[in-house]
């Protein structure tokens, strides 16, 4: 069974990869201009980047910029080279794939570390007490409805052009996402245990550690995995809008938003960026899944 799964998965990767390579290289074998329109405008190397261009982009972006300018040219020439291509602009800024990935991962982790406890705390509070729930829940619903990325410019006005307006939306997104699973974990799953434990006299720390956390644990952990995905999305979005480093910046290729979309970005770089993001997201999610399995072993 596992063998078949692996085999079919790998062969589907290979087949579609080959098909893409053929399609993206079509302009070499046939005269694309004679094809009918949707094909003619699609089968171009600047629309569908050939596989070798993707590999080249990966190699360039991983290797990073050349360290030394050639000695026979004055240094200022290098500061004002107008490179029009996406990779060139990135390399000029000293951007590499691995540093961008690291920076974005760092932001995601910061968002998780700060946002998750915050969200879990709020979820516990409103899940535990009906009274607090009645007062806080309407406010939470209001706050949750605002998309985090829409907050960036407002945060910038308050705190200036700093790291804060990239991190706060991520923290905000993670926290608002974590409230609901915690709330339902406490309210739906734990209420019977809670009543029993309370009537037996458990209170405070004992109640939290021995009853609440184990009972709400699985729901909270699966919420964490979902929050991780949200954090990646928010991080990349805020980097695309307002950041000069990280994967979002790599994808749109430097500069500020308005100018970013006037220069066409290179699809090869965008695809490489997406592959990198997907790989990093997958790795983190697998880690979270393993952790979940380990931590909730008692539950099955």
């Amino acid at each position, binding site marked *: 069974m596992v063998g*078949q*799964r692996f085999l*079919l*998965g790998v*062969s*589907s*990767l290979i087949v*579609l990869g080959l098909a893409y390579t053929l399609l993206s290289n079509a302009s070499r074998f046939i005269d694309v201009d004679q094809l009918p329109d949707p094909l003619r405008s699609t089968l171009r190397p*600047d*629309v569908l980047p050939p596989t070798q261009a993707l590999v080249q982009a990966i190699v360039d972006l991983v290797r990073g910029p050349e360290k030394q300018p050639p000695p026979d040219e004055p240094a200022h020439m290098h500061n004002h080279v107008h490179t029009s291509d996406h990779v060139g602009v990135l390399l000029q800024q000293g951007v590499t794939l691995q540093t961008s990935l690291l920076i974005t991962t760092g932001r995601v982790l910061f968002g998780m570390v700060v946002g998750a406890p915050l969200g879990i705390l709020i979820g516990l509070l409103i899940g535990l007490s009906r*009274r607090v729930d*009645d*007062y806080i*829940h*309407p*406010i939470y*619903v209001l706050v949750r*409805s*605002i*998309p*985090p*990325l*829409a*907050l*960036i*410019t*407002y945060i*910038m*006005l*308050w705190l*200036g*052009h700093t790291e804060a307006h990239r991190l706060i939306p991520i923290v905000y997104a993670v926290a608002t996402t974590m409230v609901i699973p915690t709330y339902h974990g406490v309210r739906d799953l734990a209420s019977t245990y809670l009543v029993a434990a309370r009537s037996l006299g458990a209170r405070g720390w004992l109640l939290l550690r021995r009853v609440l956390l184990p009972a709400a644990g699985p729901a909270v952990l699966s919420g964490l995995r979902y929050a991780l*995905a949200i954090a*990646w*999305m928010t*991080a*990349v*979005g805020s980097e*695309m*809008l307002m950041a000069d480093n990280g*994967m*979002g910046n790599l*994808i*749109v290729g430097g500069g500020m*938003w308005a100018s970013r*979309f006037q220069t*066409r*970005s290179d*699809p090869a770089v*965008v*695809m490489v*960026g*997406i*592959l990198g*993001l*997907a*790989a*990093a*997201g*997958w790795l983190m999610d697998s880690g979270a899944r393993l952790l979940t399995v380990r931590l909730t072993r008692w539950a099955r």
Partner: protein
Amino acid sequence: MSLVQRNRIKRALLSLGAIAVVYGIAAEIGRWVLPHRIWMDVHYIDNVELLPTYQSLAEELAFLIQSWILPSSILVSTGRILAGFLLGSVAGIVVGLATGRAARLEYVADPWTTLLRFTPALALLPLYVIWFGYGEASKILLIATSVAVVAMLGAHQAVRGVPQVYLDAARALGASPRLIFRKIVLPAAFPQIFASLRVALALAWVTIVVAELIDAKMPSLGYLLALAGAYPRVPQMLIGLATIGTLVFLSDMLALSLHAKVTRWMRRTG
């Protein structure tokens, strides 16, 4: 209306009212205390109201409504959300149902769904601009993609969650695969699919804030926000935020009441 419900509504109004009053007081104090001139990296911005008073918010709102900017933006953005949501949810549910039912198909699709799942939809925006141009298509398709991923996962897991006993029993009684799918898999998977659509709807609103920054033209909420950030014009910014928040809230309420209505048959006691 029961006493508990009345109590809940009273408390909700109380806390929301308290927030509103606190904001009002903070804004009145802020008018004197907060700086009106902000240093932004390379230049000063003048006449900034970091916490606009209710009066300036009301003036701005009146202007935005009278000039028909806000209503038309709401219509245009909601239209895009609806189009993208319909497209994405149909595509996602079909794929999710298929991979949930057919194991071989799942194995073949697995690498690609994994790739799609961990791709932040917003990162696709530059690619969509190249592929589908600056027009309406790339915005709607971006929303559709982010919706489709969530709907696909939801449908897949929902189909997988159908108890094997039901399927075995139906097969033992001689039901054809088609009948099993229509009469057992779909109804049993429906609530979870609907729940994932509710999540996807909220995600669609997140996506549009960024999607509407390409080929930004005026009647659109995303551009309204971006413009308000560029001036910067705080009352407009906050009204834009509140408008999107309200729309997210309303669409969520709509989905929730629809969910309650269509799954009434499976309501259990307790």
